[in-house]
């Protein structure tokens, strides 16, 4: 009722310009929302699993992204629909929280929505459906905890970590060398991990990419790689046992922040100013020299004169190094970032065993390697590959693998992949459903059905008969009471995921179920959609 009458019978408007806004109410609104959510999920469904396909996205500027990563696809997709945006958010939050399983969470939410629609058609109230889903998700999370395995790893034995990272990478285009990339990711994480506190700061891992060579040439550098070269072409290209001054002040005459003017009105003043200026440059460089620095890394630019003086005094320097990189260099070399020349002291210098400049290809691309640092806690993964899109996709894949490794260090529980965890949960929920009186029972069963759709999609993408395969695996799980049976996507011949070494992290899976349920609940509770008209 957008129009009401007051006590004198005069009409007044509650909702302005009725005609120009579109409005959906009740069941219609819910159904429209559900179908939008399902449509988004359907796009991602084919990307699931090791045989999943990629999506090609062209952004408004015409640049191409080719990706298999759910979060990336959705973010670039330019979704306009409100519910569609919720799904995008869902995938993004999975990405922030866990880093992997961004496709799975959306597929899961889509399946839940499909099931919910069926229940709504039967006349079950959306809130009851939502409650049923909530109960089931709790059961699922608890069940996952039960079937999860803990595995032991140490700084020397990382085989299990590598295996889990490989599961993540196997669905990406980098599958071809998943073993080596997984090892790189694990080594990188182990290098920066704080095993005592069970925490990993992923900011310490820098992922740098450069087109050219082969994917196989991707390497882990125990140090920092900076896409910069020496400020003067004649500075030495290699410095051993470098002492690094990390500066955030430019080699330029001072520029006070307050407005000021230096007035020159006599020849003498002109002369003194000139001398002052020269002295200024000299002082700056002398200060760096005095503390014993053999390399200067600066966030800002150099004046021509300063540049030459640096070269002349045999003090190699790098300019225009970004803030993040500067921080990483400071961490790696154990130095301090110095904002003023006056504050330079020998203790604040960073130390690195080897700094060298390396040229690539036929163009004049050069990069600076800072290696054998005092503190080896900052590492760089340097990706090579045939083209730009490949590098970008590899970066994303490595990021996923890093996140997985980090999650495992935080919590070393794993569940089995290939849909095994979902099937097992589905069985558990199905069994629990009968205990609940009331309409929720239906919703709980529907949740179990929705869980089945993940392995189903896996089977479909791998070219297997979805229904046949799923029922076979399900019966096997019940018969053998073995929660490790999953879909044999790679046609290896066994569907025991323990033998195939397909693992996923427990927290990742739990998060998927919780997030998906939350979003579905939110969508179900909406019963009125008011959208402003086109103008």
């Amino acid at each position, binding site marked *: 009722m957008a129009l009401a009458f007051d006590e004198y019978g005069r009409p007044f408007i509650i909702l302005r310009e009725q005609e120009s806004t579109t409005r959906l109410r009740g069941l219609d609104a819910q159904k429209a929302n559900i179908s939008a959510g399902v449509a988004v999920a359907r796009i991602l469904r*084919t990307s699931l699993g090791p045989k999943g396909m*990629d999506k090609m996205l062209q952004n408004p500027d015409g640049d191409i992204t080719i990706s298999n990563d759910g979060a990336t696809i959705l973010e670039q997709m330019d979704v306009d629909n409100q519910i569609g945006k919720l799904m995008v958010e869902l995938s993004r939050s999975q990405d922030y929280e866990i880093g992997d399983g961004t496709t799975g969470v959306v597929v899961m939410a889509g399946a839940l929505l499909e099931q919910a629609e069926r229940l709504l058609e039967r006349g079950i109230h959306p809130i009851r459906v939502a409650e049923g889903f909530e109960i089931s998700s709790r059961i699922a999370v608890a069940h996952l905890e039960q079937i999860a395995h803990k595995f032991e790893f140490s700084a020397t034995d990382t085989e299990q970590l590598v295996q889990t990272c490989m599961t993540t990478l196997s669905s990406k285009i980098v599958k071809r060398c998943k073993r080596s990339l997984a090892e790189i990711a694990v080594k990188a994480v182990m290098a920066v991990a704080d095993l005592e506190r069970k925490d990993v700061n992923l900011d310490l891992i820098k992922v740098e990419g450069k087109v050219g060579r082969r994917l196989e040439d991707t390497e882990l550098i125990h140090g920092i790689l900076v896409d910069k070269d020496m400020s003067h072409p004649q500075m030495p290209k290699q410095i051993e046992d470098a002492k690094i001054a990390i500066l955030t002040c430019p080699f330029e005459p001072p520029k006070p922040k307050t407005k000021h003017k230096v007035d020159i*009105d006599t020849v003498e003043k002109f002369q003194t100013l000139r001398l002052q200026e020269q002295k200024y440059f000299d002082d700056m460089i002398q200060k760096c020299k005095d503390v014993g620095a053999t390399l200067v890394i600066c966030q800002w630019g150099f004046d021509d004169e300063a540049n030459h003086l640096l070269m002349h005094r045999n003090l190699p320097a790098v300019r225009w190094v970004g803030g993040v990189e500067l921080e990483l260099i400071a961490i790696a070399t154990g130095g301090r970032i110095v904002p003023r020349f006056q504050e330079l002291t020998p203790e604040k210098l960073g130390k690195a065993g080897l700094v060298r400049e390396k040229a690539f*290809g036929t163009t004049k691309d050069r990069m600076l390697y800072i290696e054998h640092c005092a503190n080896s806690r900052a590492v760089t993964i340097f990706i090579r590959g045939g083209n730009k*899109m490949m590098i970008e996709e590899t970066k994303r894949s490595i990021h996923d693998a890093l996140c997985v490794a980090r999650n495992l260090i935080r919590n070393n529980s794993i569940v089995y992949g290939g849909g095994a965890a979902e099937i097992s949960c589905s069985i558990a929920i199905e069994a629990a459903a009968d205990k609940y009186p009331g309409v929720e029972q239906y919703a709980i069963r529907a949740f179990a059905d929705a869980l089945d759709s993940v392995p189903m999609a896996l089977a479909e993408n791998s070219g297997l008969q979805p229904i046949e395969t799923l029922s076979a695996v399900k019966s096997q799980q019940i018969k053998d009471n073995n929660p490790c049976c999953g879909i044999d996507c790679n046609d290896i011949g066994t569907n025991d995921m323990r033998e195939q070494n397909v693992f996923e992290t427990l927290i990742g899976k739990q998060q998927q179920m919780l997030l998906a349920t939350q979003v579905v609940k939110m969508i179900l509770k909406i019963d009125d959609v008011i959208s402003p008209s086109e103008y």
Partner: protein
Amino acid sequence: MAVERLFKDEATEEKGERARMASFVGAMAIADLVKTTLGPKGMDKILQSTGRGHSVTVTNDGATILKSLHIDNPAAKVLIDISKVQDDEVGDGTTSVVVLAGELLREAEKLVGSKIHPMTVISGYRMAAECARSALLDRVMDNKDDADKFRLDLMRIAMTTLSSKILSQDKEHFAKLAVDAVMRLKGSTNLESIQIIKKAGGSLKDSFLDEGFILDKKIGLGQPKRIENANILVANTAMDTDKVKIYGARVRVDSMSKVAQIEGAEKEKMREKVQKIIGHGINCFVNRQLIYNFPEELFADAGILAIEHADFDGIERLALVTGGEIASTFDNPESVKLGHCKLIEEIMIGEDRLIHFSGVEMGQACTIVLRGASFHVLDEAERSLHDALCVLSQTVNDSRVLLGGGWPEMVMAKAVDELARKTPGKKSHAIEAFSRALLAIPTTIADNAGLDSAELIAQLRAEHHKEESNAGIDVITGSVGDMAELGISEAFKVKQAVLLSATEAAEMILRVDEIITCAPRRREDRM
């Protein structure tokens, strides 16, 4: 109830078969576009820019052609990107990589059409690529230890690279130029120290390599035109009005006379600077920035040759060649390293006067002077020579060499065919397809030369059935010939990069099953 609209306005979505079709068609169109430029009898393309002046480029270089295209098809963009990377990485084979990727996709289309899943095709391609690479590795030749033979290899590679370009008439001449230039680099891949100067006029044959250094500048008026045993100071400093760099400084005076005084002080400052520079004991001064008339006059008075406004690359090269350092301050003359050369003189090429530095200390850098009838010819010649230089400099580091003329493709195809026979399952179709795609390259070379490709390829296959065959296509006589005797070689690095990036790109495009195109960003109407 159907979703009304999921995406923003004008965003389009293509799914499944249609998406795949769109990328296949786009990629093949690009491959067909550059296909005719492949091989020694390949044809050139004229490119006209839409920018101001509608400038025209005539070229045979795949990367240059593709770079200038405005493409909307996403798959085509992937191919353009691999061609660009190939150019950056090895410099040559930019056409081959696109043609091979196109052929791989063409074959894949057929396979997908006959209901083979793209993932199966991909895994087949991967196996085939690995097999092809190892086949090539088995047959590489490496003459790194034998300097004479290595030089011969380099000559052959340069000639092979150049033979498909505009320089093919004088390929021997240019191959020698390129090899000489690259040998001087002594293993560095920094091609910046090879300077290429283009001067219209004369014929391509008149191009030459100069051991010294040529700077495309004129000598200032009234300064010596010829200096023997020159001491050169290379500088990057302001020689116009040396401003006070302290921020916020400004001149504020209350009378005309003071202005004059300050102007005098400024002049005095410049005079001092010039004096300091002269104090280095030099007789040649090269600056990256402008030199105003006043200091120029001072230099002329001191009998010093002053060259202004040399470009940045030029300065770096000059510093490299003469062994001096690039200076910006002049307070301690005793420690600044000066550059030396035996002779500086002004020379004439065509009707332009250039400065020639000869008898330099470090022989790393050199200059190639290209002569030719028109700017288009010169531009294309520069590109071709650049390709050759890139390939050579890469080969110096990775001295593995293969034969040319379609020989590597035949070797790879043979190995891949054998693999196909051994592989069970649907993958073998994909592997077979890979070998067909490889054969497309010699086929195209033959077709472009107007030869009977079907006949030739069949002959080649038969030849290659024998072990250790060196047979390839001899485009000149139009028959199958021994590539080792004909001296046609290619660098292993180029072939490997072609093989791997083409496979990678094909794989990427094959994996796609949906294309989502966002609405293009609206441009403000500038008119």
